[in-house]
């Protein structure tokens, strides 16, 4: 059996045996990324919807900035959050550096603009379609945003999935602000990077398989939901 085959065999053994170390890393990753996506849903989607419906001076500039933030380099966000949370930084007294909370903050800064930008596009397209109807029914700006967020809920799954994909696959920012500390701030991606560099391929492969499975599973669920919604609401 060659080395790669052996590594895969060992990886499957780790997964089959419900290895505690693997489980801890997976759970932390899901918790951190899940919270970041939750913040994206709470703040990013409404922000995007407001920009999609609202017409005010400076809106175009905001849209351009938001779209630019979609490609925000994660290491840059990591450095900014690091500087803010480091002992000499403005939020240093909170003592959050190298904690899962710091990782959530960093991932949220990456995910919220991404989800907001996608939501803005989705809701703006819907607003073009419904503007006359909603205005004729005397829906105000805020109520229109609420109606459109609900109406576009299935399309906005794309934004949620994109946010989740970005959060779960992210390495740079969580490495900088989390420190990749074993059993504390080690996520799947940082662990894969570290274990691969150390030559511990079975753990890296096992985590990689879990990461892929989670993303595929969530995409499958979202696809199923969209198909159901298309049949239900034409």
């Amino acid at each position: 059996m060659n080395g790669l085959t052996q590594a895969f065999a060992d990886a499957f053994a780790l997964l089959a045996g419900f290895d505690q170390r693997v489980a801890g890393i997976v759970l932390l990753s899901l918790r951190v990324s899940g919270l970041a996506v939750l913040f994206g849903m709470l703040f990013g989607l409404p922000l995007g919807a407001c920009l999609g419906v609202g017409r005010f001076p400076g809106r175009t500039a905001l849209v351009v900035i938001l779209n630019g933030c979609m490609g925000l380099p994660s290491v840059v966000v990591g450095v900014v959050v690091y500087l803010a949370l480091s002992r000499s930084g403005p939020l240093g007294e909170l003592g959050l550096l190298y904690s899962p909370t710091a990782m959530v903050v960093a991932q949220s800064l990456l995910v919220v603009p991404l989800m907001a930008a996608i939501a803005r596009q989705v809701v703006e397209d819907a607003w073009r379609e419904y503007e006359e109807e909603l205005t004729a029914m005397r829906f105000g700006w805020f109520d229109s945003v609420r109606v459109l967020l609900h109406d576009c809920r299935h399309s906005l799954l794309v934004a949620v999935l994109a946010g989740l994909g970005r959060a779960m696959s992210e390495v740079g920012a969580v490495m900088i602000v989390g420190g990749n500390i074993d059993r504390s701030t080690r996520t799947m991606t940082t662990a894969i990077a570290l274990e691969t560099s150390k030559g511990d391929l079975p753990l890296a492969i096992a985590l990689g398989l879990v990461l892929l499975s989670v993303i595929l599973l969530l995409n499958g669920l979202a696809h199923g939901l969209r198909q159901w919604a298309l049949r239900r609401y034409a």
Partner: protein
Amino acid sequence: MRADEMTVAPSLFPLRIHELRWQAGGRAVLDGLSLELGGEGITILLGPNGAGKSVLLRTLCGLLEADSGEIEWGEWGAGARPEFGVAMVFQQPKMLRDSVLGNVELALRPQRVPAAERRQRARAVLERVGLAHRADDGARGLSGGERQRLALARAWVTRPRLLLLDEPTASLDPSSVEAIERIVREIRTEGTRILMTTHNLGQATRLADDVVFMDAGRVCEHAPVQRFFARPASQAARLYIQGELPWRMAF
């Protein structure tokens, strides 16, 4: 008191439109249009494409702001715009990705009608437009005729004082047209003033109490329906009724 309960007073009528002007792309779509409407009946707006009929409806609905001129809403007076009491149905109504019932309930949300009452009123109006059996179906799966009936239900449920209908039967089959006309008559019977555009002269004779004939952004003639079709006062209206090609193409 909720907004929908306040729509009975002050009255929106008589509705007086003075010298309304609205331009698009350098062309005067409404060119000093003046019109007065009383509080009862069905008025049909006739006129060639580009006459400004839909623009007039959109202006009355508050979707467009006239460049100049004035709309005086009965007891509201000049310059004031009633928040509720005016509803509009479009030629191609848009339905939300929701159930038929949900789409009707939606129209009552701006008036802050409580959820239970919204549902009850929506079900009642769906019954009257013949869509009660499809209440839980997706609204976007309806046929063209059903969709237009749903749009009427969505407007009717708000108990409007003025209902604006922009070619609601365009491209519908005869049985759907008949159903829509029956509903329009029922809405009128309940005291709603109706202002409707159509190119269907037969429909105008069936539905209208009076006809407003428009051309080039102006009112050429406003007359009771029998008199309009028997003795049109303007040459433009006479040619239009005879089915002559427009004497002045819009392009």
